[in-house]
């Protein structure tokens, strides 16, 4: 199994999987507990518009999709805060608009030589050292941020209005979290793809919640679970020759379902 590390793309994908596991393990908890799971899918799909825009204007698709996703996430946040529109509605509007825009740009560009399927479903062969460095950059910024503001964010997640009157700057924290979420989603698209990345936003916390009743344990369980499914998915995809993103998400979901059945069975046995 170690011979796979001789290949640069696998080495990069392996390191990146570990970094993304920590990022999603933490982010997932706050997204799921704030009932914003659809936001992950929404932002990821918004990236499609960004990628197509980049291809159309000859900009690096990573840069254009990052800008597109961050701006969309902030606009969704602003829209929800300052109007009567719910998160689901705001996301639904941006989601469809961006996908439609992407389809128009792609069709206008008569000839293109990029891996559209790779963007949609992920392609570990395309994971470069630059991607690893970007993921490392996100880790270096995100983990200290969470360490410094964990309990304020927890308070905001539990009870936003009360957190505000208790001195938590909920508007600023919410904005920073949205920027992190959008950036981390865009960085992870190379591995798991636009369509599948939303699984990494919801699965870690959902799995952790099955086994832990304390937020610190949920975060830790979520991180360990994500590391396991990403590494196992990578190896499995290599040996059975399937797309890495799809293998990670399929095995992760099956593991989650197994855990659901086990916890359900244990509860039944206890009566």
């Amino acid at each position, binding site marked *: 199994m170690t011979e796979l590390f001789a290949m640069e793309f696998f080495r990069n994908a392996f390191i990146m999987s570990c970094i993304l596991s920590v990022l999603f393990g933490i982010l997932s908890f706050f997204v799921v507990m704030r009932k914003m799971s659809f936001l992950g899918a929404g932002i990821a799909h918004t990236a499609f518009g960004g990628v197509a825009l980049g291809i159309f204007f000859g900009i690096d698709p990573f840069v254009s999709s990052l800008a597109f996703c961050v701006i969309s996430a902030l606009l969704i946040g602003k829209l929800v805060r300052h109007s009567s529109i719910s998160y689901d509605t705001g996301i639904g509007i941006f989601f469809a608009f961006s996908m439609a825009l992407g389809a128009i740009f792609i069709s206008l560009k008569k000839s293109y030589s990029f891996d559209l399927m790779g963007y949609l479903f992920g392609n570990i062969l395309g994971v470069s050292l630059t991607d690893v460095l970007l993921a490392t950059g996100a880790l270096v910024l995100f983990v200290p941020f969470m360490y*410094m503001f964990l*309990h*304020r964010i927890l308070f905001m997640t539990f*009870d936003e209005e009360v*957190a505000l009157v208790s001195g938590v700057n909920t508007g600023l924290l919410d904005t920073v979290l949205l920027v992190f979420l959008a950036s981390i989603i865009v960085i992870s698209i190379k591995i798991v793809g636009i369509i599948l990345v939303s699984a990494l936003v919801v699965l870690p916390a959902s799995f952790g919640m099955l086994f832990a009743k304390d937020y610190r344990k*949920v975060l830790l369980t979520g991180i360990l679970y994500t590391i396991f499914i990403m590494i196992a998915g990578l190896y499995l995809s290599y040996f059975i020759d399937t797309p890495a993103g799809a293998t990670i998400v399929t095995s992760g979901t099956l593991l989650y379902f197994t855990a659901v059945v086990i916890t359900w069975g244990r509860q039944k046995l206890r009566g």
Partner: protein
Amino acid sequence: MDHVIPAIELSGVWIRYGQNVLLEDINLKVEEKEIISIVGPNGSGKSTILKCIMGFKDTFRGSIKVFDRDPKEVQQSGIFGYLPQGNHHDINFPIDVYNVVAMARYSKRGLFEKLKPADRDIINGTLEKVEMADFRKHHFGSLSGGQKQRVLIARALATRPKILILDEPSTGLDAVAQDRFYELLKTLRDSEGLTIVMVSHDIGTVSRFVDRLACVKQRLHFHGRPEDCASNESLAKVFGKNTYFISHDKNCETCMDRK
């Protein structure tokens, strides 16, 4: 004579939603260390008044002062301890009672949010005040409605507020639990010197425990001592003409029916 600054003062407050007037010319003064309940039927604008006091509403006409300052200015200063309406918390939220109360102290700390022994004393002290100290390791979602209310009161107190704002605090509590809860509020007012503003639609029970009642239905129809409300015709305007004000003692042994 010294001019005493009221804890809260609303002067000529109007709020509109489109063509509809939600609040009309509300003038209300709450003195420091007073317990006041704003009562009225559903949709009468009670909760909106609370939101205005805490600076959540920008679009109103008139003036609102909290200790002579703008609510937006003091909103994040920790002056308010707030218990929001209903039991909207996710029962699966993975957190214990101690950490729910601790949230209020973490937000007072600087970067890295390291709690000091004094913070722990405050957390444990407030849990004892609300008689929930024995439950500090319990999962918050597993508590009963009344126990949750007590924990959330402890969290509100842990910010060391000057004004406690409670939106329908008795929702989900049975009659005995309600009485205990309101008694607790009176004890806290006396021991902590708190000003307490709450919203309720249950005028009968709440009137036994508060210093002042404010009956609201779009307008402020009555503001005064609860005993003066019973004979006031404004009650019929707020709750309808078939409303009876039941004034009764703690065990309802000498219930007295007054129109």
